């Protein structure tokens, strides 16, 4: 479903991604963990081309883009249609109600039938438990509600892969669980997902594969929750022990 090879990305002089290779199979849930500044978020943003990598290739679905040549607009468009993004800061459109947040993109981009889109959007809101709030503006919602709406908004475009960038980091602790529950529900339905997270217990529970990143490299990766329960690399052990100290 996703194949990333030799991906590199620098900001100014700083090499954020040094050479990244990994694959994600259809239906897999992959969690990216690692210290701040390790490049997890940048890697995720590269998958959606919110950042343009300097070198390497990304394949998602049927679309392969090489960054060793100049990127074309058509390639960006093509690659993006396979993935949906959920941001740390939600980024709902504040001037639109919840339901309008969902229907705007499919109506403008896909030019689909409005009634069908409306119906599908309402089903998705039902799924994330936001039906009763569908006519509210984001400003009137809690962070957890906003994030659940944002998940539904990404899903309505029917992405092959869902990308989550620290989806619960901006939430009050008591709101984290309602968002994680929604994500777990998606995992159980077989939605392919890549999740950047600091919630280790959540990652342990949900991941089919965990990648540990540090200083621009994938230091360690393993099936299931092995990376967390039985780390092999010294740096992974150090990172996990630091978390336990809290």
């Amino acid at each position: 479903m996703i194949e990333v090879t030799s991906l590199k990305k620098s900001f100014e002089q700083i090499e954020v991604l040094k050479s990244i290779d990994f694959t994600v199979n259809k239906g897999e849930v992959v969690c990216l963990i690692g210290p701040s500044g390790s490049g997890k978020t940048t890697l995720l943003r590269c998958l959606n081309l919110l950042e343009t990598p300097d070198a390497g290739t990304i394949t998602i679905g049927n679309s392969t883009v090489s960054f060793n040549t100049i990127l074309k607009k058509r390639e960006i468009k093509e690659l993006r249609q396979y993935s949906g993004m959920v941001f740390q800061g939600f980024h709902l459109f504040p001037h639109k109600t919840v339901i309008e947040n969902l229907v705007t993109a499919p109506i403008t981009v896909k030019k689909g039938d409005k009634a069908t889109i409306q119906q599908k959007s309402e089903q998705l809101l039902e799924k994330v438990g936001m039906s009763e709030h569908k006519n509210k503006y984001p400003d009137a919602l809690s962070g957890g509600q906003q994030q659940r709406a944002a998940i539904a908004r990404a899903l309505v475009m029917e992405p092959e892969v869902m990308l989550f960038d620290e989806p619960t980091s901006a939430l009050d602790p008591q709101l984290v669980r309602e968002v994680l529950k929604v994500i777990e529900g998606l995992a159980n339905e077989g939605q392919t997902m890549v999740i950047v997270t600091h919630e280790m217990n959540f990652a342990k529970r949900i991941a089919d594969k965990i990648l540990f990143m540090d200083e621009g490299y994938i230091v360690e990766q393993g099936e299931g929750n092995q990376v967390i329960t039985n780390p092999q690399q010294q740096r992974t052990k150090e990172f996990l022990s630091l978390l336990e100290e809290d």
Partner: protein
Amino acid sequence: MFEWFSSIQWEYLYDFELAIDSLPFLLEGLRITMIIAFFSMIFSLILGIFLGVARMSKLWFIRWPARIYISFMRGTPLLVFIFILYYGLPVIGIEFTSAVVAGIVGVSLNFAAYSAEVVRSSIMSVPRGQWEAAASLQMNYVQTMTKIIIPQATRIALPPTFSIFMDVVKGTSLASVITVQELLYSARLVSGRTYDSMTMYITAALIYWVVCIVIGYFQNRLEKRYNRYLSDTH
């Protein structure tokens, strides 16, 4: 202090009768003022949107002319610019058939620069996350601009845009120096005839004020409409 106070001839301070009598004449002037103001608001806003977008362009040959234009217009007095248009341009063969048109052109071209800055700053104040969310939903530049960015930028731009509109109304008074018979010019005519400057200019000032109050009323209504998506805590 006391001497100055007791020397004021209160009966000359404001002559209501004169004010009422000359009101129709002043309102005729106001009509011209409003014509210039109305067209100038529209033209300066339209030109300002183009200039503001050009000012943000990635292409230097679009960005720099816009920058220089904005810098010149903001950095020179409107009065000087109106003189250049009306008395200067005929030297190179460009002559305005009507002073009113010259006034509209002068005020529009000048205030477009201020509008451009409002357009630019309000678009830039929409958080980057909004662009990214739209991009991740496969919306292109034009779709993102029209559906996501401009509606939010408009809310931010409303108060400064209405300030510009009020400045436009007041700026039209400068057209009086190129013989446009607008409100201030009319007040000056009556004042020259009656020697009652105080009454005439205060009346003119009050009329400008009323016009700006009406503009402020529309601003409030629009702001309320554009703020409806914010909860009361803001």
